[in-house]
């Protein structure tokens, strides 16, 4: 039998060429056609078709050619040359037909195999693509959520930035408008105080003049009390006007956040102004204790640093579940400026602590905090060559420590 691993263009033996033909019937037919015994021998003489015995010495031996080569011989004792040649031709046609069948089937097998491999390859590619789509579908919801969160954060950031900008603009405008009137109010109050003193200096003379009508009128109008109360009224107004002026100047400090110009400041002043701005939010929740040590003047972006202090103060105030204490400490340690904001608020859980500086991370309800305050704060401190650290214990409180390098002289 022929083997099926040879390839369509391999050389075929006589046995392979005649494999489709019954040897017994072929020899029988040959014997009848030739009128004498015949046998088919392969090129090396090894294979004999049928069971014909070896022939006599004088037997004819005709070559059987296939593919330009002699594949075997037809041996016959027949005397008729023409018949023997015809039989050999017949066998060659059989061989040709066998080769044709063999080549066609081998080629068919090769092609089917190649097509099957191609199909399997495509199938594998399809499976892979299907798996990818499946995974995509499964992740879709999650990824949409992520995208929504990203967009939401970006929107909040934008909103926050715009809000800050418009608040700053408004504050600058208000500060400018208030500055003038508060200036002349303060000045007029001072003048008024000196006028009251003049009234007081003539009060004795009026009372001792002996004019009864005048004394009665003085008494009726209770001008003694008026003259005694007037200076303190004016003093309170002066204090109030001074406070307004201070708040206005602090507001101006914050509204200049966008103008990131460096100036030389005492950071304690920045801390104080941050406290003034945050007074309202703090007073209702906590007592503020300042322990500000002497600091060297620092060349820095003061507006930015004030914003950091304000952020930390507001965070501390918001951390108060019940009335507590916020302590701000400043000083020099190991040659660098150290500022500590400690509160006795609710503290930060350990699992949250590593994330508090992450952008858009917030524990507050949507809308009330941008999740950017601490991120921006850290960026500002880093930009000044310093760093910010946090320690916290749930139920006890939180301490943020800012380290800033002192400017080199």
């Amino acid at each position, binding site marked *: 039998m022929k083997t099926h691993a040879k390839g369509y263009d391999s050389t075929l033996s006589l046995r392979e060429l005649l494999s489709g033909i019954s040897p017994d019937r072929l020899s029988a037919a040959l014997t009848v056609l030739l009128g004498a015994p015949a046998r088919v021998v392969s090129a090396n003489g090894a294979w004999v078709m049928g069971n014909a015995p070896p022939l006599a010495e004088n037997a004819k031996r005709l070559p059987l050619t296939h593919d330009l080569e002699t594949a075997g011989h037809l041996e016959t004792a027949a005397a008729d040359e023409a018949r023997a040649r015809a039989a050999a031709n017949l066998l060659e046609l059989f061989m040709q037909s066998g080769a*044709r069948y063999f080549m066609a089937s081998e080629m068919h097998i090769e092609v089917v195999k190649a097509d099957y491999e191609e199909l399997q390859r495509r199938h594998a590619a399809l499976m892979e693509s299907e798996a990818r789509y499946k995974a995509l579908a499964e992740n879709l919801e999650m990824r949409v959520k992520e995208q929504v969160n990203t967009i939401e954060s970006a929107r909040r950031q934008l909103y926050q930035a715009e809000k800050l900008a418009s608040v700053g603009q408004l504050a600058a405008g208000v500060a400018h408008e208030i500055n003038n009137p508060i200036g002349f109010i303060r000045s007029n109050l001072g003048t008024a105080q000196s006028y009251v003193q003049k009234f007081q200096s003539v009060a004795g003379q009026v009372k001792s003049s002996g004019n009864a009508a005048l004394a009665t009128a003085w008494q009726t109008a209770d001008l003694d009390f008026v003259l005694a109360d007037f200076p303190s009224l004016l003093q309170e107004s002066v204090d109030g006007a001074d406070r307004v002026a201070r708040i206005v100047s602090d507001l101006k400090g914050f509204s200049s956040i966008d103008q990131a110009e460096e100036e030389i400041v005492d950071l304690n002043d920045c801390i104080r102004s941050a406290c003034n701005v945050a007074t309202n939010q703090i007073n209702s929740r906590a007592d503020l204790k300042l322990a500000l040590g002497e600091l060297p003047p620092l060349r820095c972006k003061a507006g930015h640093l004030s914003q950091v202090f304000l952020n930390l103060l507001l965070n501390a105030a918001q951390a108060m579940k019940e009335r507590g204490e916020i302590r701000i400490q400043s000083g020099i340690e190991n040659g660098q400026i150290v500022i500590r904001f400690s509160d006795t608020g609710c503290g930060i859980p350990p699992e949250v602590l590593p994330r508090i500086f992450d952008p858009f991370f917030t524990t507050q309800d949507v809308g009330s905090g941008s999740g950017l305050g601490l991120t921006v704060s850290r960026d500002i401190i880093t930009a000044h060559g310093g760093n910010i650290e946090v320690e916290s214990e749930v139920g006890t409180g939180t301490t943020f420590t800012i380290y800033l390098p002192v400017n080199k002289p």
Partner: protein
Amino acid sequence: MAELDETTRKLTIKLVYYGPAMSGKTTNLMRLHDLLSPDLKGEIMTLETQNDRTLFFDLLPLGFRTPSGWLVKFKLYTVPGQVVHDATRKAVLSRADGVVFVADSQRSQGINNSESFQNLEDNARRVGLDFGTLPIVVQFNKRDLPDVLPEEEIRGRWSAAPWPLVMASALTGAGVRETFVKLLETVYPVLDRSFSLSEEHGISAKAFIDAVTGESLENPR
């Protein structure tokens, strides 16, 4: 790659006629069978056709014996041109020693020609043949038809290509032998390098070509 069988002292060379469907590959083989008279010439074996279209391949065996007693055998194959039979084309192309690309000169066949040539390049790479060094002759067939591209235009388009161009009309036999000889001329140097044809077997390029085409009588060995 040509096959060398030391025991039977036989060198088998495989040449493939490639090209788009109906460009005349089988006709080329039939004309060669008529035109050539080498020492040894077999019958064309046609495997399976459908409406005159080749489904598997056609095979024409040719051969001659060298003075050193070796048998040099040529197997000329055609591939099926239709796009669907790509696996068969690939199988036939594998281990080829040289390729005749039979293009159809008709104006309408430009795209088919270029797609088939691209397919030849792709399949050569797939079966591990170096397309850059593979001996190729490009035949523009059907010159006898009316609406064909002018020869100057064809030569202009292919001027940058390294392969010999032959104009042919396989139906009348024109250019068929010339194409085959051109291929033998490009195949010989490769075979000579691999099998020392001239040194060990005393076959020069001319003797080689004369022997296959059947002009050996004019060229006494």
